[in-house]
């Protein structure tokens, strides 16, 4: 296992750096940025984009991770685990590249409001026709794959004390995996109104590997009428212990 560090630093600067920090590996000078451009990428200020690329003995790329955010660096433990898997003894070969946020469990908190479109069912409280409503949601979503998450969510709104929904979310990754367009839905059960169904579309954006924002439009279909709500939420992104 050989480590090679590459930047646009001159050999003179690299010599100072290596001597000052007693670096045991070689520092290469990519003066015109050609190698950086190919392997990791280049930022708008013409600097090398921080990244790690593992090349197998046969000359094929085994793993590639590029930092797209300032705190999106692999920990040493993550890197060693990846090297371990790539060298072939523990677990599946590491094959994912890019942003880790998409792989993380999401603990979401959303707030919003909207309208109860029709309230003429048997449980309607007086007035019929549409009126405003507010909603709060707390959910946990677990990614099963890049394009699919499953989860559970508790909703509290003006017309239901507490409802719990099971959710499947299909997502189309955007912005190199730092965001996604989502389509979700599933059955639920409310304390006041019994069974319900929810469906929605949303835009999810990982601000950092540890937290995200999401904007959603959700329809909740239940006995007194259909509720249409728009929510803005924040999520904590948690590394799944099994990944």
């Amino acid at each position, binding site marked *: 296992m050989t480590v090679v560090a590459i930047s646009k630093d001159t050999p003179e600067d690299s010599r100072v750096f290596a001597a000052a920090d007693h670096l045991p590996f070689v*520092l290469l*000078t990519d003066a015109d940025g050609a*190698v950086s451009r190919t392997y990791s990428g280049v930022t708008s200020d013409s600097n090398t984009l921080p990244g790690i690329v593992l090349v197998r003995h046969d000359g094929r790329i085994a793993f590639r991770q590029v930092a797209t955010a300032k705190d999106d660096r692999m920990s040493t433990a993550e890197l060693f685990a990846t090297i371990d898997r790539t060298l072939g003894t523990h677990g599946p070969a590491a094959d994912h590249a890019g942003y880790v946020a998409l792989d993380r469990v999401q603990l979401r908190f959303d707030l919003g409001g909207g309208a109860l479109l029709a309230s003429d069912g048997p449980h309607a409280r007086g007035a019929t026709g549409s009126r405003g409503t507010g909603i709060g949601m707390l959910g946990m979503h677990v990614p099963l794959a890049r394009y699919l998450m499953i989860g559970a969510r508790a909703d509290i709104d003006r017309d239901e004390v507490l409802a719990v929904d099971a959710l499947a979310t299909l997502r189309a990754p955007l912005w190199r995996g730092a965001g996604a367009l989502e389509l979700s839905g599933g059955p639920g059960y409310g304390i006041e109104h019994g069974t319900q169904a929810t469906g929605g579309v949303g835009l999810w954006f990982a601000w950092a590997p540890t937290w995200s924002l999401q904007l959603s439009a959700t329809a909740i279909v239940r006995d007194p009428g259909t509720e249409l709500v728009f929510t803005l939420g924040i999520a904590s992104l948690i590394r799944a212990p099994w990944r």
Partner: protein
Amino acid sequence: MLASSACITTLHVTTPGTVAVDAAAPPFTLPAQDGHAIALADELAHGPMVALVFYRGYW
């Protein structure tokens, strides 16, 4: 709003890298701090794997 906010914490990437997992690593030769030229192929001959660490430089 979401798109513009991305610039606050993310590095502004103008040229993303082009290599992909499972593709052949493009060969290169670059000067090391001691002045010697080092080729990727030479490093690959030494061991089971080479880790290329790209960084923004010493400052």
